[in-house]
């Protein structure tokens, strides 16, 4: 099997998850080449052909330009599959490639099955196996699903070029505002949508205080305006590794799990026992946050 991997750069550097693309290739025992809009001084280490377009010329995010560059590599490589990360870069670029190639696309691959690729459904509660019906497939891999492979080797670099004409103009990126650093907290009590409303966040804060910990939040809780974005945990927030992580009313979207999988002990409080958070929880208390948190806080304070 022949794979064309599509690497990506974030903030000028090769994204670390690129190693997971190689981990995936190793699982399939595939011959690999890579297309990358990157810089010559930060190249992925592997033995194979690297189709390299200059990051300074083509930018980090310019979907239609990157599409043309990757398609040029597809044309030369004739792979069995084109593989990207299911990242903000990959989920944006992949369907453009699939449309141009008139090919099947399978999004968010988390595993391999005898006859196809395994993906999650229904907010991560279910799985299904998807099989391409076209000779070439475009795949995006869920970050964290495949083991990162230590990269080694020296690629043969082949320069890629195209016009920089684009329907979209990338203005720039700004860094998130510096806020509270949760990465070194020993205890984090995190707020999810299941907490119900802004008033009930006080219950989370009380428990955090009783445990001597910090308050964290899921993306939903931040978007609802209950907590500051600087407390967001997950792939678009902070990645944390406390000794104790308490997930209150958090269903456990894969993006959230990515940010807390390094936690020592995970206590989840949720009314839905099928929620994906159950998969990473050492203890799942099937309970309503509004009733259980005050009871646990009181029990802690009585000690």
């Amino acid at each position: 099997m022949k794979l064309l991997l599509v690497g990506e750069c974030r903030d000028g550097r090769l994204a670390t998850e690129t190693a997971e693309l190689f981990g995936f290739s190793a699982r399939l025992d595939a011959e690999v080449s890579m297309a990358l809009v990157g810089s010559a001084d930060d190249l992925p280490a592997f033995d194979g052909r690297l189709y390299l377009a200059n990051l300074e010329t083509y930018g980090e995010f310019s979907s239609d330009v990157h599409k043309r560059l990757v398609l040029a590599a597809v044309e030369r490589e004739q792979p069995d599959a084109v593989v990207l990360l299911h990242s903000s870069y990959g989920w944006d670029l992949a369907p453009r490639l699939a449309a141009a190639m008139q090919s099947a696309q399978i999004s968010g691959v988390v595993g391999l099955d005898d006859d196809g690729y395994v993906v999650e459904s229904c907010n991560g509660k279910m799985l299904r196996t998807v099989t391409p019906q076209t000779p070439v497939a475009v795949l995006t891999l869920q970050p964290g699903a495949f083991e990162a492979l230590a990269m080694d080797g020296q690629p043969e670099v082949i320069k890629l070029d195209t016009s920089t004409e684009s329907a979209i103009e990338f203005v720039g990126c700004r860094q998130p505002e510096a806020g509270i650093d949760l990465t070194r907290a020993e205890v984090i009590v995190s707020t999810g949508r299941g907490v119900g409303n802004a008033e009930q966040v006080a219950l989370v804060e009380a428990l955090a205080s009783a445990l001597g910990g910090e308050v964290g939040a899921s993306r939903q809780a931040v978007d609802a305006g209950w907590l500051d974005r600087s407390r967001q945990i997950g792939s678009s927030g902070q990645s944390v590794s406390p000794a104790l992580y308490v997930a209150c009313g958090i269903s456990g979207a894969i993006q959230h799990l990515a940010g807390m999988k390094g936690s020592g002990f995970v206590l989840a409080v949720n009314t839905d026992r099928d929620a994906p958070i159950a998969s990473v929880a050492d203890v799942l208390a099937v309970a309503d946050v509004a009733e259980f948190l005050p009871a646990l806080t009181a029990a802690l304070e009585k000690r």
Partner: protein
Amino acid sequence: MNILACIKQVPDMAGHFEPNEAGTWFDETGLTWRMNEYDTFAVEQAVRLKEQLGGEAEVTVVSVGPARVVETIRKALAMGCDEGMHIDDAEAPERDPWQIASMIAGFAAGRGFDLVFTGMQSEDRSSAQVGVLVAERLGIACVTGITAFEWQDGEITVEREIEGGRICSIRLKSPALLTCQQGLNSPRYPNLPSIMKAKRKKLTVMQPAEVGLEEPKVSSEKFRPHERKSAGVILEGSPAELAVQVLDILETKTAVLGKGGAR
């Protein structure tokens, strides 16, 4: 200004999912239905833009699906869309993104939409493909996962949030398709007069063949629960009983209670 919002009806994700007989997707028994959350952001943004433009804009809402999706189209009309389009397709829940995109693009082609809003992905299939595929078929500009939107004199500025919390700003011109992410806006809850008014709004039905349904690119099988390896203990009981059990576990299995908390 001619605006299109694309919506999907999905089950409430808190429901319990069982495979259908063929194992290709879920059995619909016992599920309750609502608008895909990402699509509520799309509808809200379309309606806000119409309000900003004050009367020179019209919003059409389209949905592909069986008869039950009419209820969700009515919800979008109650939120402020002007006209509904139902592509009546009983097979839609099991069609792949390529097929859904073929129908939406087939409907939209030649109708001169200046802006198309879709959700970033559906909550049940989570492919994040349909919006981009529609844009590619229509040959219009597209940005995925927007968290901010601004329209000024024909110029569009959007933001998208990427890994590490970085926020990127992008400019583009219509015609364009934008897929909407959480954080873009807070969708409104329609009031009773809007709901009543929505019942009288125009809703047209079209058939898949009329809008150019194509063959699938993938097949899907073995729909099953996501059983994970490291599942721990599941505790049930009254809040007070649970609190005692949990406290006991925290005392024996973690070292955090003796230490006085965070560093």
